[in-house]
């Protein structure tokens, strides 16, 4: 319980302090990184508890569940919290090493971690919304980081679209309370079964739209390429590696976790949308020259795999969805971070990331792809399998096209480098490459010894299947 | 006895207040120029709302009456300022006078 409270308190308190300090000072940047590392440590302790003894639960004020807010750390939540904090730490280190250009960045990153932790560790629908907004508002500010025209434009688009999504989410929360009389997820999951289908589906649609927007699923994806491509690389890493987790987690938590029946009914829609994302994102990424833009479309395609896995469902599907979300977040964080630095080590890191995205061993991505294929085969749909294969073919193509252009044929590239987004020349100091290299090593290590990741995602899927079964007759 | 007096006074104040509000609204709709409309508006934001708040005496609820009293004091202080600010803006824009 203490670990659960601390996982909120540590980044929250530190973030509130850091955000008023001058983050351009190196010390402050490192303080932010240290805070994130401490948060990861706390989450690690929490994860150990969770994996050993099952979910850790706490109701605020010690009131009965529902009266107070239920905070619950289970395998699913802790996995996503850890993942997001790791990505944030990488981004914070990368920024600090490159030199933070704006006072509030370290503090915002830490507050973002606080918001995300809260969101992943809450068992209350409205509390989820609050932490969601807390994370998002930090993300809006971060998107404008740099303050160039491109970043500001990205921030406006990001903020407008996601605010719309947030309010749709809020509408769904209101509906949840109206039809169930409670906000605690467990109770909602139980009571939603007695709710007439039209109302339950209406609420579920709201949640689905909100998370799809966040995730950038086709056809809700329009905002994503501009934002990811125009914002700073480290911010893009944060958006795609940490903030987008909200969408994946939300789909899992609210889909099989709460609206189990509705998700079963709409499995086909999910799979179709997921497949469309895979193909659409993949095809659009193929001809993108700017690495960041390619990565943005790649992100659209990659989240399609998650949706497909959710749609397929069952222990295999949910585990695949969790696993793929984790892998994808790490991939995207690494790849976006590589766009800010250059050098042979970075090239190597990019390759690791590219292989991971394409699902090629020894990078960890292949474990994710294996899991997704398992769920597709379980679904017994050859079309789906073919689509997944096409998706990985496309990802291989677009990633290595860009790789060759960026790291092999340097003289070609410089001619069309977009000076606007790459406002400074790619940094060359060795220390600046440390974050990407560490992430790449992480991806490789995950591919060589995937057991922890697979076990955790299986445990996370157990959480969901347990609630699904609990919701069954 | 006191209660009846308060009730009657409150009722009268309420009716007067509502009348003032109504007339003010009519005035705002009918008056041609911004300044003139401000006069009508002043009828509502000043005497009108004060009467309505003052009618609280009929409730004989100490808390309600005290709140109404605060409201009256603040109204007296703030509504002239708002009208003045609007009038001044109208003058700056040369848009205050009545069309003749």
């Amino acid at each position: 319980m203490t670990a659960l409270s601390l996982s909120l308190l540590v980044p929250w308190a530190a973030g509130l302090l850091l955000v008023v300090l001058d983050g351009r000072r190196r010390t402050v940047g490192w303080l932010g990184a240290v805070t994130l590392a401490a948060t990861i440590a706390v989450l690690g302790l929490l994860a150990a508890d969770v994996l050993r003894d099952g979910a850790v639960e706490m109701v605020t004020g010690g009131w009965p569940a529902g009266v107070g807010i239920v905070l619950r750390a289970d395998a699913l939540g802790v996995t996503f919290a850890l993942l997001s904090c790791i990505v944030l730490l990488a981004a914070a280190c990368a920024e600090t090493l490159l030199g933070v250009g704006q006072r509030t960045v370290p503090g915002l990153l830490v507050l973002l971690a606080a918001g995300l932790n809260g969101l992943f560790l809450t068992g209350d629908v409205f509390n989820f919304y609050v932490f969601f907004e807390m994370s998002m508002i930090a993300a809006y500010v971060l998107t404008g980081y740099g303050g160039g025209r491109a970043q500001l434009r990205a921030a406006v688009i990001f903020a407008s679209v996601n605010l719309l999504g947030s309010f749709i989410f809020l509408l769904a929360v209101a509906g949840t309370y109206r039809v169930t009389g409670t906000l605690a997820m467990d109770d909602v999951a139980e009571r939603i079964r007695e709710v007439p289908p039209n109302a339950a589906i209406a609420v579920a649609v709201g949640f689905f739209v909100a998370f799809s927007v966040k995730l950038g699923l086709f056809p809700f994806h329009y905002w994503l390429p501009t934002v990811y491509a125009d914002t700073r690389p480290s911010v893009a890493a944060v958006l795609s590696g940490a903030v987008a987790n909200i969408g994946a987690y939300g789909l899992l938590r609210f889909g099989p976790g709460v609206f189990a029946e509705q998700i079963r009914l709409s499995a086909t829609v999910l799979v179709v949308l997921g497949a469309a994302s895979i193909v659409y994102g993949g095809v659009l990424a193929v001809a993108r020259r700017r690495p960041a833009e390619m990565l943005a479309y790649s992100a659209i395609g990659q989240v399609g795999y998650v949706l497909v896995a959710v749609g397929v469902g069952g222990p295999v599907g949910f585990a695949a969805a969790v696993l793929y979300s984790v892998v994808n977040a790490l991939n995207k964080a690494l790849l976006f971070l590589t766009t800010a630095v250059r050098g042979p080590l970075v090239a190597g890191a990019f390759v690791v990331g590219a292989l991971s995205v394409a699902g090629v061993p020894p990078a960890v991505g292949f474990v994710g792809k294996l899991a997704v294929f398992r769920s597709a085969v379980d679904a017994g749909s050859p079309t789906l399998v073919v689509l997944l294969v096409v998706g990985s073919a496309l990802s291989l193509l677009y990633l290595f096209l860009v790789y060759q252009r960026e790291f092999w044929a340097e003289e070609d590239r410089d001619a069309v480098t977009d000076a606007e987004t790459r406002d400074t020349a790619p940094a060359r100091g060795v220390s600046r490459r440390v974050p990407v290299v560490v992430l790449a090593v992480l991806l490789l290590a995950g591919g060589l010894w995937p057991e922890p990741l697979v076990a955790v995602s299986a445990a996370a899927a157990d959480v969901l299947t347990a609630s699904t079964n609990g919701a069954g007759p | 006895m006191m209660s009846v007096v308060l009730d009657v006074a409150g009722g009268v104040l309420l009716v007067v207040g509502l009348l003032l509000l109504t007339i003010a609204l009519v005035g705002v709709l009918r008056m041609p120029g911004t300044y003139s409309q401000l006069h009508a508006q002043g009828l509502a934001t000043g005497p009108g709302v004060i009467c309505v708040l003052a009618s609280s005496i009929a409730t004989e609820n100490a808390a309600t009456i005290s709140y109404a009293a605060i409201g009256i004091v603040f109204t007296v202080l703030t509504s002239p300022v708002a009208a003045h600010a609007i009038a001044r803006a109208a003058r700056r824009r040369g848009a205050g006078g009545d069309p003749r």
Partner: protein
Amino acid sequence: MIGIVLRVVVLAGLYLLVVSSVKLGDVAIGLVLASLVVAVGHRRRAASRSDSSTVRRLAGVPALVGGTLVDVVTSSAEVIRCCLRGPPDPGLVRLPTGPTSPSSFAAWGVRLGITPNTVVVDLDEERGELLVHVLDAHDPDGVRAEQAAAYQSRQRRVFP
């Protein structure tokens, strides 16, 4: 000094009105709070007026309030007429106030503002002049005289 005490009392009263309670604890809190607020606000004030002048001004308050109330009633009647029939001859009138203090200006403004038949359009602090819009401006001198009289009888004692 009386001015300060007065301010404290008024604020404490306001506090008690808002919490709608006259418990001893509330009175204590109200007084402490009011003193604090007055202290913070007072530190920057220049020389405060003498107690005798404060008393004199206080004595004028009933006249100010009552007179203004009367003005409000009569002017409301005029405005009601205009609202229903249309304004006879609306126009701007310059109203000399003489060089006077900010608080007096404010009092002018509030007094003229709360009576609906006058709208303070603009003012000139240096020259001591108000620009007032009235509904019947065919006799500007009459308006000026009327307002001067009102100032003399009601406002001058409180806000010279």
